[in-house]
């Protein structure tokens, strides 16, 4: 936090023209959006949130570099780095060959030696080719060197199930990376999360795995002026209560937060008041927020897209059993992806990932409401 506070001060007098340009661009992109919210005039997409966060942090600190496949001339495989090559040049926006192990290791080495690299994986599935450097080179160095070598690096890219791309391109790595000491693992849901958490990740002195979701990039969210300010930054390790409720707590992260909110809406029509927690940070996990919510609602449903066994839900469940067991009025319900590699066929794919109705059904079970079985395919 001290580091963040210092940086905020440092940013205070910094580059108001740059901020002005960013805001200008955001306003321009807003003007063509079909929807508008009376309460919040501005809306930005997750893509623009990530892009502007990268832009501002690169502008604020010349040690921040972006490296990965197609980040430069192609403007990013998902256009997250659009415009950055033109603005910061090929020395700081570096197109690499298809060598995850190579460029991830190079990023880690650069971080050892004082740069703040942001490593983009075209999708997080490809990080498997570089996982040795994430786990062994990045996560453990500060400890092994007794604090002499810190590794301020961000590994970012789309994570989780995409649509119709089969088993190798569809999986959630949140619990994989969250099991490893020395890493911080962030999963943004909204534009606010994306901006605030990516800025926090880049400013953080430690390696951060930043898990985006391809299907969320085009989603627009209303944002406040505070979120658009270049000093905006969210704390790592703090969850957000997206919707308050009293009957059941639903934890979710990334795309599943939206599903949980939809489920809460449906549940409210049936007289069940659900509290939705957007985890934001998978490691460190905000156990305090989760437990205080469960102590209030006495019921818990965890939602994630990843595989069920040894997943994020398992960890949350353990935390609640350890700290709030006597508060539980019903068994914890865990919703996760099916315990199979992602099938390609569209009907099977839909069955393999959580749906809004799965959340509704599980929440009702915790409230001892009768639940019809899922319709057959």
């Amino acid at each position, binding site marked *: 936090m001290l580091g963040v506070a210092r940086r905020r001060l440092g940013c205070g007098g910094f580059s108001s023209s740059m901020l002005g340009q960013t805001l200008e661009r955001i306003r321009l992109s807003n003007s063509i959006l079909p929807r508008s919210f009376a309460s919040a005039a501005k809306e930005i997409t997750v893509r623009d949130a990530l892009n502007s966060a990268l832009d501002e942090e690169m502008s604020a600190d010349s040690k921040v570099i972006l490296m990965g496949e197609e980040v430069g*001339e192609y403007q990013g495989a998902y256009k997250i780095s659009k415009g950055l090559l033109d603005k910061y040049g090929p020395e700081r926006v570096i197109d690499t060959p298809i060598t995850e192990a190579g460029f991830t290791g190079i990023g880690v080495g650069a971080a050892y030696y004082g740069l703040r690299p942001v490593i983009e994986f075209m999708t997080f599935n490809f990080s498997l080719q570089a996982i040795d450097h994430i786990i062994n080179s990045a996560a453990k160095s500060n400890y092994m060197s007794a604090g002499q070598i810190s590794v301020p690096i961000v590994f970012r890219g789309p994570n989780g199930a995409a649509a119709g791309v089969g088993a190798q391109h569809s999986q959630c790595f949140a619990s994989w990376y969250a099991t490893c000491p020395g890493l911080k693992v962030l999963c943004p849901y909204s534009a606010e999360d994306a901006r605030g958490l990516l800025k926090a990740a880049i400013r953080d002195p430690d390696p951060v795995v930043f898990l985006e979701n391809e299907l969320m990039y085009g989603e627009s969210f209303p944002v406040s002026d505070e979120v658009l300010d270049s000093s905006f930054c969210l704390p790592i390790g703090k969850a957000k209560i997206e919707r308050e409720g009293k009957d059941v707590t639903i934890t979710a992260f990334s795309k599943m937060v939206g599903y949980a909110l939809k489920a809460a809406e449906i549940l409210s029509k049936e007289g069940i008041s659900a509290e939705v927690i957007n985890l934001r940070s998978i490691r460190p996990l905000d156990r305090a927020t989760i437990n205080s919510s469960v102590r209030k609602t006495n019921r818990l449903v965890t939602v994630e897209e990843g595989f*069920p066994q040894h997943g994020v839900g398992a960890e949350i469940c353990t935390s609640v059993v350890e700290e709030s067991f006597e508060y539980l009025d019903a068994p914890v319900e865990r919703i996760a992806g099916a315990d199979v590699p992602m099938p390609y066929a569209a009907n099977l794919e839909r069955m393999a990932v959580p749906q809004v109705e799965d959340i509704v059904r599980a929440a009702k079970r915790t409230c001892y409401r009768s639940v019809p079985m899922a319709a057959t*395919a």
Partner: protein
Amino acid sequence: MAAFSAFRLLPPHPIPLQSTLFKPSIPFLSYSSHHLSFSSSKPSISSSTFSSRLHPIQVAPSDLLADKTDLGPVPEISREVALELYEDMVLGRSFEDMCAQMYYRGKMFGFVHLYNGQEAVSTGFIKLLKKADTVVSTYRDHVHALSKGVSARAVMAELFGKATGCCRGQGGSMHMFSAEHGLLGGFAFIGEGIPVATGAAFTAKYRREVLKESDCDLVTVAFFGDGTCNNGQFFECLNMAALWKLPIVFVVENNLWAIGMSHFRATSDPEIWKKGQPFGMPGVHVDGMDVLKVREVAKEAIERARRGEGPSLVECETYRFRGHSLADPDELRRPDEKAHYAARDPILGLKKYILEHNLATESELKTIEAKIDDVIEDAVEFADASPVPPRSQLLENVFADPKGFGIGPDGKYRCEDPGFTQGTAQV
């Protein structure tokens, strides 16, 4: 270089290189230090110290190589072979064109990578293989599957996500498998198919030498692209394949672009074929837009592997006529570059050859095209009419062992799968 012929595999001895022409591409100094020029004769690859925005990348005809104007005589082939090759290439092209249509109609989904333009490579190699020989492919795998004999119906149904697909709808566009046809998979990540292919070749050698199956002379062909040749797994496997003299052919389909990354911007020495020699295997460069030349090189490389003389590296210089996938806006490849390669369409090239050499008449070729049209129509109808996979299929095939916990001393499966691992699926 003048001694180099597209039709001969170079023996693994030092080759006089022109590598002094190349400077490593360093992002800090120059944005792109290589560019090829159509018009300049030698060297065809030169260095630029300026940004590519000042000196746009130009890519020459085929030709990575300086002296490759004369590739020698085109080999003679029989009428039967010519027609077989023609049919296979037309099948590949028509199938992919239909995939594009079906994708835009929402019949298939996700990433669909089409092979248009590269048919000479698949046909040139795979049509020389036996059914039991193995092929390992990439995410651009539909046409490799077709060439290897998987039916158009099975591939199309897989793309439609139907239970009648070659993987019952569980694999999808990037993951075509067929044990029956020796198709060991499409691998979606760069480089990951190469070790798998090397393992298949290892098995063939093991069967022959350790298990004493003296008649096992199976060969593996690994297909991958130019982008892969900067990946560590490529180099690791070249080493082991040469070290153990494995029966494998490494086929680089160099289409000059890895999505939007030009080969020349990604690679310190863009002549991939030269990377075989340091590992002690022959490397050869061939015009991948000419199926007869590809086939000639393929024949020698495959026979060499079958004879137990070890691996070869073949760089086929080719071009994809469409974007990287159907989702790629394809804005970085220049129109003149695309037009240049479009004019060298491998199917039109073979057609011209067949007609000029009186191997078949125009109407006979038309008959083949009509036949393929029917095959594709039939495949689409079949795929469309096929059922989607049943709900019960979701949890099948995770393990060969249906319970996933192994077999106990009583010969029965040890344990029931606990329900909680079923996740959301209420099957």
